């Protein structure tokens, strides 16, 4: 097979899947179910997943004029994104169907968004990073607006859109300044040029702009203001997707940019990332304390989790990169899972919104309640769940690099986080009050069960035998290691 094409095979498969879905949609009967299209998207995603795994057998290298690179690092995030998309598609098969029109479009958009995120993780040229970022962002803007007849849907979409584009402009300005300082937009070449001679001021300003841009995308404080509003108004399966997959891709890009292009500037960016991590953890956890709305609470929790992930960034070691990659996986597993429960229990119109609405969920449906409890336990970080090892590796990496204060602040924050997760957990297992609300919950359907099995199994495996995923994360981190060691000098 053509070597160049093989390097973007998962993206090609997903693009073709998306295009076929868009072409097939108008041919279907107007009132017929769109589920076959959803299953087709599931098939395409599975194919992309296996294609990414197959890429591991390719020798490392670049393609298309040095814009895409497949290595253990890109494959790791490709598989993660494909997995998230797979679970999200399974959840949305039933929760989007029915009241919404043009559901086929939705499945196509998920595929296109996944293409953008995957391109971001394998891009080694800032131009492709930008295009991947925009493909993924524009698809998520549209998906956030999918409940366009409700009052909150378009409001959440406009907030997401305006602030997202604002961030993109900063990101672009950063790229322009770095191009001005170095004369190139290839990430590795920037790193090479910046190692010789004095660091131009333009490059430092450009790096700060890129940090702002990506900070918005991953909802790290102080760029987190949009997160709760967007998560509240967007359909729950979409929130499950956009709180994990685009963020994982953005973190992957940020790691590559910071470690490969700017290893020598770490004394500039490390304190900035340190403060972003601390602020995100504190703002996220303290903000979540006073939330009654479950989706807003989970939004603040995702800000806090972005903080934990950034904490691993500051470690400046292979261990830190591996911990960040591992944490992205564990967070994705438990967050997609909990939003699967929320979207099934709440339905497309979000019937259940407040924490007290969830009272007695476990009595109404032991399965949903149990799954939710399990994910909450993992989010708290209790041993034998993925969340425990995720936090453990992050803080171990930070501690080994001498970030004692960061570790202490992080551990205090984990303690604060227990409170609001436990509040929801207690609600799920207490005697029901609003029985009419809970009676509206339909029986879990087959695709939802599949998604729950997938996410619960992933969380459990990460919590009991994390070795294999961790070794894959280490292999991925190794591709960035030559640059990391330059940074340490």
């Amino acid at each position, binding site marked *: 097979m053509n070597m160049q094409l093989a390097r973007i095979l998962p993206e090609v498969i997903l693009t073709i899947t998306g295009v076929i879905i868009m072409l097939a949609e108008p041919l279907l009967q107007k009132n017929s179910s769109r589920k076959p299209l959803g299953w087709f998207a599931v098939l395409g995603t599975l194919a992309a997943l296996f294609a990414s795994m197959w890429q591991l057998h390719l020798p490392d290298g670049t393609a298309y004029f040095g814009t895409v690179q497949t290595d253990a690092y890109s494959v790791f995030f490709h598989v993660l994104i494909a997995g998230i998309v797979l679970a999200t598609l399974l959840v949305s098969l039933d929760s989007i169907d029915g009241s919404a029109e043009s559901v086929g479009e939705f499945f196509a958009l998920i595929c296109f968004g996944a293409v953008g995120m995957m391109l971001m993780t394998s891009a080694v040229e800032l131009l492709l990073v*930008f*295009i991947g970022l925009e493909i993924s962002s524009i698809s998520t*803007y549209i998906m956030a607006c999918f409940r366009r007849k409700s009052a909150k849907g*378009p*409001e959440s979409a406009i907030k997401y859109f305006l602030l997202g584009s*604002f961030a993109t*402009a900063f990101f672009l*300005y950063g790229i322009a300044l770095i191009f*001005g300082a170095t004369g190139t937009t290839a990430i590795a070449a920037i790193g090479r040029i910046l190692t010789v001679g004095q660091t131009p001021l333009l490059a430092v300003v450009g790096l700060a702009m890129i940090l702002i841009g990506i900070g918005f995308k991953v909802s790290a404080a102080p760029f987190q203001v949009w997160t709760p509003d967007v998560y509240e108004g967007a359909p729950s399966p979409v929130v499950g997707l956009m709180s994990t997959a685009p963020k994982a891709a953005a973190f992957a890009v940020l790691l590559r940019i910071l470690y490969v292009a700017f290893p020598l500037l770490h004394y500039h960016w490390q304190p900035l990332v340190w403060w972003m991590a601390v602020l995100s953890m504190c703002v996220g956890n303290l903000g979540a304390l006073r939330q009654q709305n479950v989706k807003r609470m989970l939004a603040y929790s995702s800000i806090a989790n972005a903080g934990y992930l950034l904490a691993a960034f500051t470690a400046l070691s292979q261990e830190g990169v591996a911990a960040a990659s591992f944490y992205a996986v564990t967070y994705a597993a438990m967050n997609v899972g909990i939003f699967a429960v929320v979207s099934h229990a709440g339905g497309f119109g979000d019937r259940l919104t407040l924490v007290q609405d969830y009272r007695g969920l476990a009595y109404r449906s032991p399965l949903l309640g149990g799954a939710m409890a399990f994910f909450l336990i993992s989010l708290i970080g209790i041993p034998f769940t993925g969340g425990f090892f995720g936090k453990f590796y992050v803080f171990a990496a930070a501690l080994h690099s001498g970030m004692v204060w960061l570790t202490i602040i992080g551990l205090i924050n984990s303690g604060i986080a227990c409170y609001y997760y436990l509040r929801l957990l207690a609600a799920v297992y207490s005697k029901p009050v609003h029985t009419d609300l809970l009676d509206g919950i339909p029986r879990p359907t087959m695709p939802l069960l599949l998604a729950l099995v997938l996410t619960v199994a992933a969380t459990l495996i990460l919590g009991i035998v994390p070795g294999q995923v961790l070794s894959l994360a280490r292999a991925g981190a190794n591709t960035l290691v030559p640059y990391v060691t330059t940074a340490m000098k």
Partner: protein
Amino acid sequence: MVPISYYLVLSAILFSIGVGAFLIKRNIITVFMSIELMLNAVNLTFVAFAHQWRHVSGQIFVFFVMVVAAAEAAVGLAIIIAIFRTRNTLNVDQVDLMKL
């Protein structure tokens, strides 16, 4: 010949005007326009640097930025129409169902 720093200062000023307008303006369309202004300031920077480095990659970047800005405009205007249909207003202060 005009020195390159003139272009850079101009684009920095345009970018700042864009940021300021984004934060101050109350009409969604105007806010959206200020984002376009920011993107075009970036384009000017790219072209100026491309000229300085005698390298076309900066100009190619500009083409991609324009394409993406067009795609963003299509999606953005669609969302703005959806807002107007549910609220009958384009004032950002009145699009405030969800608050802290």
